[in-house]
């Protein structure tokens, strides 16, 4: 083939005629990005368009809110903004960690503004900085240890000395042993010998007695007493129920008095001495009533009685019946005294286990100390009502282990004061890198003491299902939540709003994106311009057993010095 001939087939200006492939390729290069960008931009202005920007599904706890961003995100120009504390606190009344903590750049803290008479949020809201949403169905409380160690690796406090070890970076590393194990004692005022009981075996009578109370109880006579025969988990299955005398002790230690004065067996209650005394007295009175006022013959020593030799029977009875010559009142009083004396005397039946703390007021009866066996032996927070501990343990998740694997000192403990709580060394066998089980801070510690959280929900079913939650005027700020006026019923609140706060409501409607600072300023202005609103800011009423935080209005027991929620001092009574 002549090359020239072949070459002549080709148009030298071919490049001026663009092939359809190239045209469509170039068009696509422009079209696709423009269309994609336009769609995303358009989505910003549609009611549910922001759903496209959801980085992941929310946790199951928040699934009820569906895709309503407004439930958690602040609304602002151009879309939804960051998650503020105010949004979180509208449902979660989580107090801060410690009143004297140094806040590492961000957690919520309120300060009292004496000029406005209102608490002011002085730190940036950052609930979300620890609790990250949109990561699927996972617990938001499970946060990284670094949130804890950023303070606890070099602990500093705003006042006083730290109550905890100043340097903790990991559990298996420098976390100290549990406080009660470092020289502490179990001060529960009841005597108990674990060693002696672990060695015991079940008798047939004891099994029958126990089965009267618990028909599911199965045991073979002669079986060893097991830990779970007395220690049963509570309803949460985290901790053990307190030992109950009626269920766990009575089968072997019955509280039945001897047949004094021939009135038959009397079963005594396991209660304070005055109640026991009343029961004994009532038993003798009941007997007399049943017998028509006729006193039973008294038992007197038989002068003919001779103690038999071993293996022989006595010829005469030890006691003989004689007619009762005492008046009924004296007969009752003498018998009550004779019955109670062996119970209540020093070293008597009750004192065998219980400690005496003086006498019951107005009587000569001993006052026994209520054992109050603690639910947990971890130290309690003095600033929380009831001294609830912020450390928790879950027996349920450890049920695979034999009790004595951890509580191994139970086999040798003879004193109540022995602490049978396993030490840290016991935990790190599993809770360590080597052991494989998690050793995160939040495995045992709570940051927010939930026991002092209030039920502050203000939504209705309608709010939740129709997407009108976080209703305007219902939940606004932290201070609003804890102000007694906020707990008024809705109709009342509406009525008040109409009377005194109409301009404020209008302002809220027209300026939805007002910042916290601006709100505070507005509040100041309103306080000056609208004296009618002043009654809302009056100090809440205090009762005799509680006091209110001067800052946030949380209610605390009288003994509390500082508010565990916001760290402020208590309002003077």
């Amino acid at each position, binding site marked *: *083939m*002549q*090359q*020239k*001939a*072949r*070459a*002549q*087939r*080709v*148009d*030298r*200006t*071919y*490049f001026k*005629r*663009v*092939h359809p*492939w190239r045209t*469509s*390729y170039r068009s*696509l*290069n*422009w*079209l*696709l*990005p*423009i*269309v*994609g*960008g336009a769609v*995303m*931009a358009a989505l910003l202005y549609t009611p549910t368009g922001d*759903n*496209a*920007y*959801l*980085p*992941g*599904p929310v946790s199951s706890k928040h699934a009820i809110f569906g895709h309503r961003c407004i439930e958690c*995100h602040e609304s602002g120009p*151009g*879309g*939804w*903004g*960051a998650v503020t504390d105010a949004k979180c606190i509208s449902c979660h009344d989580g107090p801060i960690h410690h009143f004297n903590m140094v806040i590492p750049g961000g957690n919520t803290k309120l300060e009292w503004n004496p000029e406005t008479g209102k608490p002011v949020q002085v730190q940036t809201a950052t609930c979300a900085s620890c609790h*990250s949403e949109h*990561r699927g169905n*996972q617990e938001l409380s*499970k*946060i*990284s*240890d*670094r949130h804890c160690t950023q303070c606890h690796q070099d602990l500093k406090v705003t006042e006083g000395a730290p109550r905890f070890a100043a340097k903790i970076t990991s559990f298996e590393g420098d976390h100290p042993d549990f406080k009660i194990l470092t020289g502490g004692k179990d001060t529960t005022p009841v005597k108990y010998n674990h060693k002696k009981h672990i060695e015991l075996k079940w008798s047939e009578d004891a099994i029958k007695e126990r089965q009267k109370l618990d028909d599911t109880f199965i045991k073979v006579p002669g079986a060893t007493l097991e830990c779970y025969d007395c220690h049963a988990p509570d309803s949460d299955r985290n901790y053990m129920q307190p030992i109950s005398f009626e269920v766990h002790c009575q089968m072997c230690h019955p509280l039945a008095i001897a047949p004094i004065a021939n009135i038959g067996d009397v079963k005594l209650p396991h209660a304070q001495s005055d109640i026991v005394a009343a029961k004994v007295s009532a038993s003798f009175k009941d007997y007399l009533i049943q017998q028509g006022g006729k006193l039973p013959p008294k038992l007197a020593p038989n002068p003919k009685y001779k103690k038999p030799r071993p293996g022989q029977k006595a010829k005469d009875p030890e006691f003989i019946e004689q007619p009762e010559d005492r008046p009924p009142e004296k007969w009752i009083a003498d018998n009550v005294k004779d019955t109670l004396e062996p119970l209540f005397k020093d070293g008597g039946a009750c004192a065998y286990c219980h400690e005496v703390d003086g006498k019951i007021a107005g009587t000569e009866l001993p006052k026994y100390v209520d054992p109050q066996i603690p639910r947990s032996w971890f130290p309690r927070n003095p600033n929380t009502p009831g001294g609830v501990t912020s450390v928790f343990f879950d027996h349920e998740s450890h049920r695979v282990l034999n009790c004595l694997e951890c509580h191994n000192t139970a086999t040798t403990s003879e004193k109540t004061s022995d602490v049978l709580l396993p030490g840290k060394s016991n935990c790190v066998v599993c809770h360590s*890198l080597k052991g494989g089980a*998690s050793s*995160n*801070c*939040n*495995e045992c510690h709570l940051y927010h003491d939930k026991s002092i959280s209030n039920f502050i929900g203000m939504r209705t079913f309608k709010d939740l299902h129709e997407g009108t939650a976080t209703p305007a005027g219902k939940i606004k700020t932290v201070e609003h939540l804890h102000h007694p006026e906020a707990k008024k019923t809705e109709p009342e609140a509406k009525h008040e709003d109409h009377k005194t706060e109409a301009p404020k409501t209008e302002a809220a409607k027209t300026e939805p994106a007002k910042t916290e600072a601006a709100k505070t300023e507005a509040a100041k202005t309103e306080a000056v311009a609208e004296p009618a609103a002043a009654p809302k800011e009056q100090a809440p009423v205090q009762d005799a057993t509680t006091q209110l935080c001067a800052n946030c209005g949380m209610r605390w027991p009288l003994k509390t010095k500082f508010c565990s929620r916001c760290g402020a001092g208590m309002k003077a009574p």
Partner: protein
Amino acid sequence: MLIDRSHRGWITFTVLVFVLSGAYYSYYAHASSMSGGNGPSGGTVTGLAYGIVAFTMMVFCGLLGVRKHFRIWRLGRVQGWLRAHVWLGLLAYPLILFHAGMRFGNGLSFWLMVLFSIVIVSGLFGIIMQNLVPRTMLDRLPAESTYEQIPDVIESLRREADRLVGGVCGPLGVETEGEEEDRLPGGAASRMRTEGAVKGRVGHARGPSQGVQEGSGPLKAFYLEVVRPFLGQTFMAQAKLAVPQSSIAVFEHTRTLLPDTLHESLRDLESICDERRQLALQMRLHFWLHCWLFLHAPLSYALLVLSVFHAIKATFYF
């Protein structure tokens, strides 16, 4: 672009950065999950750093189109840009996965990951094709033509064949376009390819008609019934002439029906058919060589635009 020794530097760099960033990600993910956190994600400082680095790489890769558009810019050779495009683009994918905590996410994040995956897979496909197809073309397409000119060349081939057969068989009785204009507008084209397996005969234009030769009837019939339809714009993949072996057989059979004087014309016709087959093969290979670009480039640009939305909104929510 051929992956050859000139890529060694980029390969080393890519592998090194991947290994280092992967090792750090392993540490970061392990530390994050062991300390009870929610695991790695784009919201953490480390995750954000991965995202920023990867996005910068993606933007650079996207600038290749701009660089190609302004070829006279003195910003390094386009070949160098292309190498960086290939390896940085490839590296950006694992970095984005590290950024996202090895998750595809939800909503826009999910679609971004899907887009990026398509872009990367199509790009890899393109690299493979560009390393295989040109060699195949060099071996199997001695009559390779400018792709955009293939329809014209096909038309030219048909006219050549018409003239060839018409010259020995007389008027064909079919409508032929541009009979008078043998050459295409624009005059002679550029040089011929001199490399590769140039072989065989290629049909050529003959001079004026030689008049009707005796015994040319079977040739005329064969041309009109078998060859001419095959030389149309639409390639008849099922025709016997579409397969070299059966084509040889068909022409051999026809040769037995013709006098010796027509054998040369038949050989020329066979060459024209062979060239038509090569053009069809070239079109197929061209498709596989470039089709991935229809996914790769537009989706890349869309990915960049949507990534900007993602970055802005993620920062806004954060």
